[in-house]
């Protein structure tokens, strides 16, 4: 049985906005990021990478590199341990270590541009980089598949030799299609026959990258006893440890991963890239080895989110009730399978209650970097298709698209596209908050000459995840509490987790001192991702706090008994940071006072809390986008933008707003300009921030936020995840706004000026 909680409202710490615990270190530059790690005897590693996106490796000659003065060691795939051919669970996605090993260091084939073929360790970074250029590789170039159509064509070159595809349970050989899954509920064909209005279209999109500021990095030391220490900016020290154990063929306990401060991840810093290479170079040289990626390598060789195609067809009856939906989702997995088609299927219909639904999804291997999670992986792509189709259906039938969304909104008991039924959700609350928002009730204003304005809305959904987390608490004799956790802090989670402990202990947030530690120093904790950290690690902190209170009641009893044993633990109650005698209400002691006496009252008080949560509270959001398009140049400016979201309970509202704004901004970039622009011969043409065209602050209005709080019964404080929902609505919200402004539907991302000009010409 899953434990459930009643919503509360009388919080002391939760809902306030204290200064984040890591704030000063970060703004003063004192925080230690991965690239700041320095160790005695440190040397540098660099990779020799393939210039081709698909080729057979005929030979690798490292002799020139090895002879270069200053070079201390060179490795190739021959130095990679033999790995198992099985899927392992990494929290936000499964991986096959053999494929991963081959992907991180090519053996017989390169399957994406930038694919490493050798690694060099040298006294300094530049010697290593120059020597890596001297690695000679003989390639036999193969045809390149940049997209799903080309990879699935009849005569396609097979990218992963020996990969067996799964087509609805049937094994398929000689294919680039890794998986075809289906979810089918009700009678879709019949429902479409009954439908009065039907809308169908195909939407296409390119890979896009998280674009975190800090590039991937790793420092590793492999000692004489085969113990490996790794320092890295990772979203999950423990999942990195698991991945490394598999890749290096070591027991997990031989590996200690120290998570450094992290300069953004958004999902992209869950997989390991440089860590195993640095470790093997260290094994070879006996020295600690550090590696830091260049931006080009970050774009070309770390995981973006899938591009692909989404076909969607929806049907409604005469009363405007959605009765049928069918879709086909083709996602580019990159060079290894695993493109989040599962999450896409979970999300596509989630905002709606539709009795008859079918989803076919296809995971397709192409010659591009293997995808990695990126904020609500798989959901924005399908939301773009679904939410565009909903607007087009409403236009066809003459319905108001806001009312249509309200009338068809999912609710408790609604069956999601993958069959799961919702518990308490806030879809309708979000829609009504949007409808009563200031933005929705303000008009668009008039555009200057030559420009036109439009407004669009879109739903967005992410299910959020639970998984495993651990927290330790230690009471200090000054009344503060040290909170030891394993969740790396990307978006303010030190604050949000500490605040939950502080609430339960009745002490100020500042009196909880969070510390993020290595994998030897706290219990297993899953990745910071899936919007799980404030929810699950916060839950663990709440548990640890309750365990601590229980322990401290014993100490209070000890104090008040004065050796007589007349007070038991059960005679003590605790509320708002004060312990009371149940029998004599005038007898009390504060948490802080008690902390000062612990040295003579049984010694250090510590506690732990750990959780393994099967699910989390679903998150819904709706965005409103006002845009202005220059009809002559096709340039779109976002002039006003509002994000509305059910977050369950906002622990620290500033960081909730920050997440909503950040997600919206990334979605706006994806909608308008960001894309992997591929060359025909393979490889990304625009692998720099200059040409990748993420929005800057000058391209954006203030993102307004409306927080809706429908607590989930799954968490003691009602917390749902926050970070992922807000990247889902912007694509369609902007597409719908463009249609409102220009009367044309764009079905290909990004909706950049060139495409708008093209569409206007037609």
């Amino acid at each position, binding site marked *: 049985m899953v434990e459930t909680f009643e919503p509360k409202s009388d919080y002391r710490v939760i809902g306030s906005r204290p200064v984040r615990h890591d704030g000063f270190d970060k703004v003063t530059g004192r925080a230690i990021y991965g690239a700041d790690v320095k160790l005695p005897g440190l040397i540098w590693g660099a990779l020799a990478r393939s210039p081709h996106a698909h080729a057979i490796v005929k030979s690798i000659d490292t002799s020139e590199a090895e002879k270069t003065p200053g070079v201390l060691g060179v490795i190739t795939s021959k130095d990679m341990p033999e790995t198992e051919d099985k899927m392992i669970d990494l929290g936000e996605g499964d991986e096959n270590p053999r494929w991963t090993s081959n992907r991180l260091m090519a053996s017989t084939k390169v399957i994406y541009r930038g694919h490493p073929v050798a690694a060099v360790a040298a006294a300094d970074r530049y010697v290593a980089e120059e020597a890596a250029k001297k690695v000679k590789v003989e390639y036999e170039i193969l045809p390149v598949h940049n997209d799903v159509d080309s990879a699935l064509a009849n005569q396609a070159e097979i990218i992963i030799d020996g990969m067996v595809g799964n087509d609805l349970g049937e094994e398929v050989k000689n294919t680039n299609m890794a998986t075809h899954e289906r979810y089918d509920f009700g009678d879709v064909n019949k429902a479409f026959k009954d439908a009065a209005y039907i809308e169908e279209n195909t939407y296409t999109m390119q890979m896009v990258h998280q674009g975190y500021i800090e590039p991937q990095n790793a420092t590793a030391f492999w000692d004489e006893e085969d113990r490996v220490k790794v320092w890295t900016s990772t979203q999950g020290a423990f999942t990195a440890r698991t991945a490394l154990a598999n890749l290096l063929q070591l027991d997990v306990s031989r590996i200690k991963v120290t998570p450094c401060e992290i300069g953004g991840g958004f999902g992209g810093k869950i997989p390991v890239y440089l860590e195993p290479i640095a470790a093997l170079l260290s094994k070879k040289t006996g020295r600690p080895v550090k590696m830091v990626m260049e931006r080009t390598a970050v774009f070309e060789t770390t995981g973006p989110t899938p591009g692909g195609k989404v076909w969607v067809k929806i049907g409604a009856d005469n009363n405007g009730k959605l009765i049928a939906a069918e879709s086909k989702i083709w996602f580019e997995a990159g060079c290894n399978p695993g493109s989040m088609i599962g999450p896409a299927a979970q999300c596509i219909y989630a905002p709606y209650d539709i009795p008859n639904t079918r989803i076919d999804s296809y995971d397709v291997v192409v010659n591009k970097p293997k995808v990695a999670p990126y904020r609500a992986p798989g959901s924005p792509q399908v939301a773009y298709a679904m939410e565009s189709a909903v607007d087009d259906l409403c236009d066809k039938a003459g319905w108001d698209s806001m009312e249509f969304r309200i009338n068809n909104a999912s609710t408790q008991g609604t069956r999601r596209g993958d069959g799961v039924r919702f518990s308490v959700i806030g879809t309708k609350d979000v829609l009504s908050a949007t409808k009563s928002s200031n933005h929705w009730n303000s008009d668009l204003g008039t555009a200057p000459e030559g420009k036109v304005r439009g407004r669009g809305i879109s739903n967005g959904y992410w299910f959020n995840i639970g998984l495993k987390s651990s927290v330790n608490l230690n009471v200090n004799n000054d009344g503060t509490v040290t909170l030891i956790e394993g969740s790396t802090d990307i978006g303010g989670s030190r604050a949000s987790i500490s605040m939950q402990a502080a609430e339960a202990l009745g002490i100020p947030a500042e009196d909880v001192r969070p510390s993020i530690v290595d994998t030897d120093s706290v219990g297993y904790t899953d990745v910071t991702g899936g919007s799980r950290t404030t929810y699950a690690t916060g839950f663990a902190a709440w548990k640890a706090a309750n365990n601590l209170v229980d322990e401290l009641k014993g100490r209070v009893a000890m104090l008040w008994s004065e050796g007589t044993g007349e007070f038991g633990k059960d005679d003590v109650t605790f509320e708002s940071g004060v312990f009371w005698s149940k029998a004599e209400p005038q007898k009390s002691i504060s948490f802080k006072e008690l902390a000062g006496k612990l040295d003579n009252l049984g010694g250090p008080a510590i506690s732990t809390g750990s959780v393994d949560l099967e699910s989390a509270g679903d998150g819904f959001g709706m965005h409103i986008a006002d845009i202005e398009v220059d009809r002559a140049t096709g340039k779109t400016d976002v002039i006003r933008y509002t994000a509305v979201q059910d977050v369950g309970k906002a622990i620290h509202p500033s960081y909730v707003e920050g997440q909503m704004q950040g997600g919206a901004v990334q979605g706006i970039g994806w909608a308008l300009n960001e894309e992997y622009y591929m060359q025909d011969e393979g490889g990304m043409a625009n692998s720099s921030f200059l040409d990748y*065209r993420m929005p*800057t602050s000058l391209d954006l209005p203030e993102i307004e936020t409306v927080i809706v709080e429908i607590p989930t019964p799954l968490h003691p404080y009602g917390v749902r995840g926050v970070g992922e929902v807000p990247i889902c609505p912007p694509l369609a919200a902007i597409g719908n706004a463009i249609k409102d402004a220009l009367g044309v539907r764009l079905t290909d991302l990004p909706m950049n000026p060139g495409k708008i000009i093209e569409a206007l010409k037609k």
Partner: protein
Amino acid sequence: MHPFSYVAPKTIDEAVAVLEKNGTRARPFAGGTDLLVQARANKWDLDTVVDIKKIPETMSLEVSQEGLTIGSGVPCYQVYNNEQIKKEYPGIVDGALIIGGIQIQSRATIGGNLCNAAPSGDSICPLIVYNAVAHISGPSGSREVAVEDFCTGPGSTVLQNGELLVKIVVPKPNAGSGTAYQRFTPRNEMDIAVAGVAVSVQLNNNGDDFESVRIALAAVGPTPILANKAGSSLSGKPINDDSISEAASLAKEEASPISDMRGTIEQRKHLIEIITTRMIKEAVKRARG
């Protein structure tokens, strides 16, 4: 990238000597906002960078009766913050103001922009329409080259081994003239021109006819392009929508862009027509004060 040495000569002769001796393994270093980025990307294999900013001649910024002198080491922010330049050479300011962001403009020079010879270089087309002249010193003395002839291909210029750009001289515009530059980028800043147009107009005494017009196009050919046909089509023409749209469509024809990640041929040609129209109108507005 490998270690290289840094020298900062104090005279033109010293600089020329170092450059001549090292050939392609040395490069002049102004703001470095192109040079260092390109060295990292292995475009250059350098032994020496020659900082030109200690040479007095390269650091002069002067507005006189003859015109505007911009030393090749003067950063953009000094150019666009100069009140006299803002007033008399607004087209130069249009370009200098959009090269990168504030950090870049604190180092980047107009000379470096010109010597880097990117077809999209934002200061080059304004210089061309102002009839600016590049003053070059080298092993065999000094010479002057019109900016419109300076760039010979993407990243290549008329500069020979050992030669250095010392300064750019912009003749003083006559009364009744106006100049403007604009580029199109999908983002509002920190982006590279998909297409750009500079226009300089000289109006007749009444201000209702064009006397002469120069139009230059950015990012639509291997070098910035002086669009002669478009410009001369306006000579002696009245200022109206017909004459302007004819010039704009000639400019569109003179553009010879490629399709790449920054834009397609069709999009770029279309933009040239749009921006040319807008810039002719803006230049006329400025000419009329």
